[in-house]
């Protein structure tokens, strides 16, 4: 290979309690090229990037930069080595203006004491002009659109004059025109010799901009190749595993009558013009597993939250089991028979300070009431034991803290908590995110068994393989709208990817 390797990760392993996030991964960054890193959620992309950027430290393995071993202990050290990162989540201070954000912790000063606002603003204006954004450097970041904020984030990285720039899904919040500008800037940076690491889920996009591609799956390096030598099919195959779709064959389950019916649900954005959810209608039958597929910002999580009564949406009608759902109180919805297994286990699913037992019964406390408003300890224990057994949760004692469990078992506790409310419909948001392969299959089995018992299951996943493997029916969403429905038979990876890109411009041309 003729291109120079500027940085090289060698046998990098990262172990979190309960999961191996990276397993002896090698990764090359070619100088002055766009190095695409791709893989499904939980494949280890972000972990690898965090190690490069000094946010996390590898458990074992080493990183070489121009032949020198480096081990940045924090982002500042990484920056000094010339490695910058643009995170997927925005890391801006909304209470400060654009130029202050761009130069935060790298302030231009007069004599090392006073901030030279004029110099900062001048430089900021220059950077923004390069990004073709007519944003005044004095604008408060809070007053910018999300897409513009992303541009500021990019300007911030450019201001550092790094030699390696990591971009973690930089386009997820950008409009098509903004994406074009970003690509132009990336080409410009390349010409200046900056090496880019580019993470994205949007396949068409990275076919357009990438030079090299590296594919991770479940923490392992799967393949690396120059992009000109490969096609979309090769990428998808490697990403999800060869012929991986539909290898999981769910046990047969009978599909009954419509149990949940949503008609014309619209959720307006708080400030912006586009609706977060736009006229969404769908049906779910008893015993049916329906997968919701879509890219980030498709509105899947928001749909679930609306169904739990969390947002002020408009809908013609939402019926559960023949009854209208009207109350916006979560506990009323749960009583009616709908329950959510949230996307982010740590942030939304579990109370870290509580025991396994207390987490599991949190949503169904009123089921164990005895005299004097008190809880019947035996009833509680029986219920918890039952589900620990049924879900085969591996634990030594239900009174231990929830954090003593592995990711997969924690997820099962969240599922157990939901099942203890006796739901008719279960909403599962990324139910297998961040858990290992064995546990994933267990979660699949649980879903199928629940369907066999007549529960309707609506689940969200960004993992193609997962959606294809387990769904009886697949609904694809994009930008808040339902784009298409696929039956299990007619669904293919290609078709789902294409449908999910509707409205995303760059890909829609195909």
């Amino acid at each position, binding site marked *: 290979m003729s291109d120079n390797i500027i940085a090289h990760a060698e046998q990098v392993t990262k172990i979190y*309690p*309960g*999961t191996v996030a990276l397993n002896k991964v090698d990764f090359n960054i070619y100088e002055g090229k766009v190095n695409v890193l791709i893989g499904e959620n939980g494949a280890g992309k972000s972990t690898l990037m965090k190690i490069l950027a000094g946010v996390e430290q590898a458990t074992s393995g080493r990183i070489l930069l121009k032949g020198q071993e480096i081990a940045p202990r924090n982002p500042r050290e990484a920056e000094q080595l010339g490695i910058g990162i643009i995170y997927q989540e925005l890391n801006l201070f909304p209470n400060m203006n654009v130029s202050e954000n761009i130069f935060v912790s790298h302030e231009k000063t007069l004599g090392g004491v006073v901030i030279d606002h004029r110099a900062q603003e001048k430089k900021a204006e220059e950077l923004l002009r390069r990004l073709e954004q007519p944003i005044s450097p004095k604008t408060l970041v809070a007053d910018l659109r999300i897409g513009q904020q992303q541009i500021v984030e990019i300007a911030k990285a450019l201001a550092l004059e790094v030699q390696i720039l990591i971009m973690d899904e930089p386009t997820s919040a950008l409009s098509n025109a903004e994406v074009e500008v970003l690509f132009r800037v990336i080409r410009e940076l390349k010409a200046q010799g900056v090496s880019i690491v580019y993470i994205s889920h949007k396949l068409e996009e990275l076919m357009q901009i990438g030079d090299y591609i590296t594919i991770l799956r479940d923490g392992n390096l799967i393949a690396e190749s120059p992009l000109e030598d490969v096609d979309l099919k090769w990428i998808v195959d490697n990403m999800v595993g060869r012929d991986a779709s539909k290898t999981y064959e769910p046990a047969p389950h009978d599909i009954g009558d419509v149990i949940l019916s949503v008609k014309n649900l619209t959720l307006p954005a708080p400030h912006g013009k586009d609706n977060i959810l736009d006229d969404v209608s769908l049906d779910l039958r008893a015993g049916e597993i329906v997968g919701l597929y879509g890219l980030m910002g498709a509105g899947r999580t928001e749909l679930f939250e609306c169904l*739990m009564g969390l947002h002020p949406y408009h809908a013609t009608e939402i019926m559960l089991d023949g009854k209208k759902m009207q109350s916006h*109180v*979560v*506990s009323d*919805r*749960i*009583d009616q028979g709908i329950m*959510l297994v*949230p996307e982010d286990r740590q*942030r*939304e*699913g*579990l*109370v*870290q*300070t*509580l025991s396994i037992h*207390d987490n599991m*019964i*949190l*949503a169904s*406390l*009123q089921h164990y*009431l005895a005299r004097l*408003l*008190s*809880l019947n300890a035996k009833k509680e224990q029986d219920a918890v034991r*039952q589900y620990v057994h*049924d*879900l*085969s949760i*591996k*634990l*030594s004692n239900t009174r*231990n*803290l929830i*954090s*003593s*469990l*592995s990711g*997969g*078992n924690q997820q099962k506790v969240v599922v157990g*908590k939901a099942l203890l*409310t006796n739901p008719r419909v279960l909403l599962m948001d990324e139910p297998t995110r961040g858990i*290992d392969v*064995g*546990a994933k*299959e*267990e979660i699949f*089995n*649980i879903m199928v*068994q*629940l369907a066999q*018992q007549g529960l309707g299951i609506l689940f969200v996943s960004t993992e193609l393989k997962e959606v294809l493997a387990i769904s009886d029916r697949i609904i694809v969403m994009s930008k808040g709208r339902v784009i298409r429905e696929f039956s299990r038979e007619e669904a293919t990876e290609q078709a789902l990817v294409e449908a999910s890109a509707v409205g995303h411009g760059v890909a829609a041309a195909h």
Partner: protein
Amino acid sequence: MIKAKNDMSHLDGQTTQNSGLAVIGKILVSMRAFIALFLLLGYFAIVNDSFLTQSNLVILTKQVAINAILGIGMTFVILTGGIDLSVGSIVGLAGMVAGALINEGLILEIFGIVIYFNVWIVIAITLIVGMFIGLVNGVIITRFNVAPFIATLGILYVARGLALLSANGATFPNLVGSVELGNTGFPELGAGSLLGLPYSVWIMVVLTILAVFIARKTPFGRQVYAIGGNERAAQLSGVRVKRVTLLTYVISGFCSAMVGLIIASQLVAAHPATGETFELNAIAAVVLGGTSLAGGRGTVFGTIIGAFVIGVLRNGMVLEGLSSFLQIIITGVVIILAVVIDQLQVRLQQRQ
């Protein structure tokens, strides 16, 4: 019922391994308030002969009861991740309410009459006033999204102002009532005793039992812990976060009013400045008892121990004739030490 087939990954087994030393260390750290209490008791018992006398212990527990009762309410608030700075002012206001009702009665100007209530009704009204102030705290915090620190700081001023306003800064003296008006007996609350223990101590015992029951045995208690641990997860689990949070301030208001009654009764007078800085003592008791100011972790019983630690420390230092200025310094050091150890425990748990 469902049943999953696959066996779990081998990684699980590793997490519960722990060396014996670490276990003992952990137990010692988690029982630190208890240990501190016994060390203090032992120390003062040895160095001062009058410490273990019955009369001193009664004085000691009477002092502790005040702080402990406030601490009980404060524990619920802090468990949700909040704080209640208004308790001291509610103590003062409650005393004034009771004092006014006994000495001056309820004046209904429109009808030109004055109603004097039976002491039991005076107590009930005072407690309701305390709960109402707590309710106001709760409404400001949960409905208007004001930070608990700010909301209760504001109410601290408002309640103190009301207490001062009620008698133009003066004291309601001699709260004995009169036989003709049928409102005698108020001083009995502070002066009376049962089985050798003052009523205030019994109130502390009963409230402690009740609070432990609520915290451990009722859905409300569990939900308080859940909110403090992860409000979002609690909300998604159907916990009525606002309602539960609001209730904790009502409980705190109730406890404060109870203390206000006890003190007014003990002094047989209601002074509007009563209870100043009591909120800080209550918070100190809660924190010493191992409750995390971040919410979600802690126990009512720990708070009681914490209140005893402070009480024993103060009482012992007084008996030893330590300068009262030095006493304040030592109390401060002990509180900081307790929180440092608290952080240590959190880190130990995370490492596990």
